[in-house]
């Protein structure tokens, strides 16, 4: 067993460090701390953040890959190749595949198939699943079984929550004891945070526990568990949302601020660049780039050690393409704001002190643009998650072997036309994506209200 670090893994972990550094710098500046505190004073923002953190943790778990080699003795033939930690913790789902479609919590397949019994008789019947619901004795009620099996996850969740509450209570008591009488206690909506954390934790533990006995969200055409796919897709969605902004941000910042501050020919060149880029339809540009990349990948298949590496490179490439085509909006915004700020008197005062342009940008312009950047980033995140789904649906998105909501929806296109309809793939992809995008949107809404300098206090 050895660790394998794919490109996107490295990027997402470095992003974690950037986020941690950001939190540290917020802690150091009183103004920023006050602002973030007031962001989290909203219950909606708090609940959204809990959900986003959950998704991010799954993305992180999916971003640690190990190479399993079969040395003949301990592992079966199946377990070799590259697995993520997330895969390993859900390994039973990877191994327990069915033959074809089965509905959530089903014990039998979804459609009838021809069957030969011992007597050579041909009959049409619903075949029994290999794994789903096979612990049940004949005639037992599924729902009663599910209800009984809910007990253990509930207990585990309550245990974890109790532990968490104790730790948190200790810190809060310490803060309370150290606080002087005059300071007001900050009124964070901890109750909302706990309720949403509890709900999510319970849901996932329940899913995890149930998945040992049932296919909780059914199986797809080739019998793979839909829950597994949905959870694995989290990484793809979050990565595209986060890393694309990472690619886009330096471009938008450097070009936008230079255009706004230096004006003249620099401004002209940058403006021409982004108006040209903006006038080409985004999907067309992305499709063209992806197709070129596909040709390169097929012609140079010896570059990649494994299919995972190939799929990863394709994901990375998609991130870069999306980043390179989506910086124009933020760039335009930053240019306009920089134009405005560079006319403000404190910039004139800095010039009168003989500060150079880069110092002025660093000390006076950039800090006054950060609210715009932050708002744009959080808003773009949900747009990019949706863009991945659209692109994969069109067929120019991530590699077909990569689990992603877009790919799930793309496959579900044909399933919707079946009679009876296979709805659970689409449904799962939709619910997982919807939750993420909704949480991101609600959070960005709050960020915008708090950080917007024009807001009325």
């Amino acid at each position, binding site marked *: 067993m050895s660790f394998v670090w794919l490109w996107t893994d490295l990027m997402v972990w470095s992003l974690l460090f950037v986020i941690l550094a950001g939190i540290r710098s917020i802690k150091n500046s009183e*103004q920023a701390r006050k602002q973030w505190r007031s962001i989290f004073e909203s219950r909606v923002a708090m609940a959204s953040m809990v959900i986003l953190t959950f998704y991010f943790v799954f993305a992180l778990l999916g971003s640690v890959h190990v190479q399993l080699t079969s040395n003949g003795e301990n592992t079966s033939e199946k377990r070799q190749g590259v697995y993520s930690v997330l895969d390993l913790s859900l390994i039973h789902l990877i191994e327990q595949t069915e033959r074809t479609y089965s509905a959530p919590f089903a014990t039998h397949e979804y459609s009838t198939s021809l069957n030969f019994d011992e007597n050579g008789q041909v009959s049409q019947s619903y075949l029994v699943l290999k794994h789903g619901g096979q612990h049940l004795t004949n005639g037992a009620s599924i729902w009663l079984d599910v209800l009984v099996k809910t007990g253990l996850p509930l207990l585990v969740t309550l245990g974890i929550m109790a532990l968490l509450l104790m730790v948190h209570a200790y810190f809060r008591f310490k803060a309370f004891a150290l606080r002087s009488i005059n300071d007001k206690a900050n009124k964070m909506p901890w109750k909302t945070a706990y309720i949403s954390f509890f709900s999510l934790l319970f849901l996932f533990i329940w899913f995890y526990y149930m998945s040992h006995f049932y296919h909780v969200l059914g199986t797809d055409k080739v019998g793979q568990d839909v829950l597994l796919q949905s959870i694995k897709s989290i990484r793809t969605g979050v990565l595209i949302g986060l890393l694309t902004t990472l690619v886009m941000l330096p471009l938008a910042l450097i070009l936008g601020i230079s255009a706004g501050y230096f004006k003249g020919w620099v401004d002209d060149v940058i403006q021409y660049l982004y108006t040209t880029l903006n006038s080409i339809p985004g999907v067309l540009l992305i499709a063209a780039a992806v197709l070129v990349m596909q040709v390169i990948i097929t012609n140079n298949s010896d570059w990649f050690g494994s299919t995972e590496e190939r799929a990863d490179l394709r994901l990375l490439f998609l991130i870069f393409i999306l980043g390179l085509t989506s910086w124009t909006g933020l760039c335009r915004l930053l240019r306009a704001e920089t134009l405005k700020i560079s006319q403000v008197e*404190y910039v*004139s*005062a800095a*010039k009168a*002190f003989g500060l150079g342009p880069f110092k002025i940008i660093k*000390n*006076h312009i950039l*800090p006054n643009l950060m609210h715009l950047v932050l708002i744009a980033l959080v808003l773009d995140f949900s747009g990019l998650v949706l863009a991945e789904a659209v692109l994969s649906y069109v067929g120019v998105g991530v590699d077909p072997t990569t689990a992603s909501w877009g790919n799930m929806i793309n496959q579900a296109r044909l399933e919707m036309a079946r009679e009876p309809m296979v709805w659970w793939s689409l449904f799962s992809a939709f619910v997982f994506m919807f939750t993420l995008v909704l949480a991101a949107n609600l959070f960005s809404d709050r960020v915008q209200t708090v950080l917007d300098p024009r807001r009325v206090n």
Partner: protein
Amino acid sequence: MALALSTVLNIKNLSIAVNDSPLINDISFSIESGEIFALVGESGSGKSLTSLAIMRLLPEALQVTAGEISLNQTELFALPEYQMQKIRGRQVAMIFQEPMTSLNPVMKVGEQVAEVLRVHLKIRGKQARQKVVSLFEEVGLPQANDRYDWYPHQLSGGQMQRVMIAMALACEPDLLIADEPTTALDVTIQAQVLELLKSIRDKRGLSILFITHDMGVVSEMADRVAVMKQGEIVEQADKDHFFSNPQHPYTQQLLADAIPKQSFKPIIDTNALLQINDLKVHFPVKKGLFQRTVGYVKAVDGVTLTIKKGQTLALVGESGSGKSTIGQAILKLVNSTSGSVDFSTPGVGEAGIESIVDFTALTEKQMKPFRKKVQVIFQDPFSALNPRMTISEIIREGMDSLQVGSRDKKDQDARIEELLEQVGLLSEHKYRFPHEFSGGQRQRIGIARALAVEPELIICDEPTSALDVTVRAQVLNLLEELQQKYQLSFLFITHDLSIIPAIAHEVAVMKEGRIVEQGSVEQVMRFPKHEYTQALLNSAPKLLRQEMP
């Protein structure tokens, strides 16, 4: 006259609060028909809130907690909203401070007035146009018929304010609320607009509630005066009585600060610190696909000035006269087209020879050592300080960049504290952010920032025009003190004639990029030679003119 005695507006015990903290506390006054009632106060005293309460246009967060307002014996707070809509515009009309933002920029001005007629009086078509044109004539717009089809940006500020007045008069209201109607205008235009409002009052028997902070305007306009302070009316009296015998100490303070100092400063002949010779700043006007230069805006067109060591030169002019551009050209914030800005540095030692440097010929790098000699204070205390920096960071910036004083952080901190105390702030203020301070305090921080690099010349670009009169007096005193202490020279750019005797030794009057008259303050203000200077002085409110020495 029975009509003149009837009460148009009566406010009784009005109180307004936001979240239980009172903004207006139990005020009462009444306005008679044909009377101009001035409501005077500094910013935040609640005078504009009062006017909004009359129109019932208060923001939703604010609540009227007590009192009543009656207009022509109708209780306004008892009316349903649809009846109130009829009263707004028909019985009460309002004009605002900023004519630019009060008019819709994409609609012809005539149409905007005609719209009011259509809504309230149901006058349409040609008739409406005729009525608008006659209104335009009444408010003194030249070529009224042509102006009907103009857009707001084609009009000057004074003309826009006239259009606003025409719009307010369109439905022949009984009460006109004028909320600082001349504050955004130049003095000569201000005099004209005030004259217009007065003549309309006389012709129509209109009552005017005149809201202002300017005592000069009050003395010009009002029949009766009420002074507001922190949501309360502290004094209410007839104009003559008010000015001759103010009762409340706050009113006395206001009047003392508003009325200029009586004496001129003695002129001592010292060496020139800065000599501006035939300075021209022309901005190219670019047009077309390839941005070819088609002409020039001559912001500064051949200006020659001398600023003497330890003295103040006041540069007076109306907006657009190019006075601020001169300041920027000295600092090399804009490039000058031709001419020279010669700065003299005294030589070292007894026999040192004075060296003269022309700023316009220097590169940015060569200019840097001179940046600490010339500093600047800005007009708007809110935009002059970076909102993301603490006060100590703001003051330290120049010391670091220009390497003034010690490089040691502890010594710098001590110096920052010393500077803050010098400008009348506390040393613990240095860890705060600009938004925690009032306008006057911010202006003091701006002064401390300029002082930090120990300059010889400070360019004061309208440093007091955004401040209330009492704060203005304090800031002017501070500048005066600093000049005495450090032998500073000031180039004091202003449009406000009343403060010139208090601050300046010499004065230069600027118009359309040129200096039309310059000399000692006494000479220019007592015996103005150029007709523009005379016009400026005559436009100043009578109160200030009388008191000018």
